[in-house]
C-alpha cells in the first residue's frame, strides 16, 4: 500500500483535483440555487489550484522554462485573488436579482432586464 502510494504519488494528487473539479461541475449542472452554483464554481477553482501545486511539486521536466517552479504558486495566488473578487461581484448580482425577482432559483432568471 505504501509502495503503491509512493510509486503513484503525483497521480494521487492530480486525480483528487479531477474529482473535485467533477464535483464542482456536477454542482453547477444539477443545482438550481444560485448561491450553491457560486459555491460549486469556488470548488472548481480550488481543483485547478490543486493541479497547479501538484505539478509544481512533481514536475515532468528537470528545469522549468520559467526558471523556477514556484511560478505555479504565484499563479495560484492570482487565482485566489480573482476568486475572491468573483465571489464578491457574484453575490452582489444575486442580491440585486433577488430584489427584483424574490428568488435565487436560476431557472427563473430568464430575462436580462431587471
Amino acid at each position, binding site marked *: 500500500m505504501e509502495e503503491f502510494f509512493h*510509486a503513484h504519488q503525483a497521480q494521487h494528487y492530480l486525480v483528487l483535483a479531477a474529482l473535485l473539479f467533477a464535483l464542482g461541475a456536477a454542482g453547477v449542472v*444539477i443545482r438550481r440555487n444560485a448561491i450553491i452554483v457560486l459555491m460549486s464554481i469556488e470548488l472548481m477553482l480550488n481543483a485547478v489550484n490543486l493541479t497547479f501545486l501538484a505539478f*509544481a511539486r512533481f514536475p515532468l521536466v528537470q528545469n522549468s522554462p520559467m526558471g523556477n517552479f*514556484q511560478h505555479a504558486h504565484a499563479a495560484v495566488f492570482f487565482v485566489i485573488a480573482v476568486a*475572491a473578487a468573483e465571489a464578491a461581484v457574484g453575490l452582489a448580482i444575486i442580491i*440585486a436579482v433577488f430584489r427584483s425577482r*424574490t428568488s435565487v432559483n436560476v431557472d427563473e432568471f430568464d430575462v436580462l432586464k431587471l
Partner: protein
Amino acid sequence: MAEMILFYVFAAGVLFAGAQVILWRNPIYGAVSLVGSFFFLAGVYVLLAAHLIAILQILVYAGAVMVLFVFVIMLLNLKEEELGEQRLTAFKFIGLLAVLAATAIISWKALGPAYPGAPLHDNAHLRDFGTVREVGKVLYLASVLPFELTSLLLLVAIVAAVVVAKGKI
C-alpha cells in the same frame, strides 16, 4: 507512511465535504461544508509543500469568502418554500457517482504514461520550496505587474459589488 495516511485522510475529507456542498438542500449547510472542504484542502496544500498558499487558503477562503457567503445567505433569509423542492432524484445521484468514477478512472489512466514510475523530480526536497520568502521573490521580482494589477482588480470588485447591490446610488 505519515504522508500517505495524511493524504488519504485529507483527500477523503475534501471529497466528502465537497459532496455535502451540492447535496444539502439548505445553502447554509453547504457553506459550512465548503469551509470544511477548504480546510482539508489546505492540508493537502501543506503536503504539496505549498506552505504560503495553504495559509492564504485558510485566510482568504475560510476567513473572507465564507463570511461573505454566510452573510448573503442570512441577508436573503430564504423561507422553506423559496428553497424549492429537493430535486436530487435517484437518477441524478447515480449519475453523479458515475461521473465521479469515470473521472477518476480516465484521469488515472491518462496520467499513467506521464508518470510511469515514481515521480522523477520531487521539488519538496528543495530548500525553502514554497515558503513565504521564495514565493515572495517570484511574486515581487518576476510577476510584479500582475501583482500590482491584482490590487486594482480588488478595488474594481469592491466598487462593482457596492454599485450592483445597492440599487440606487
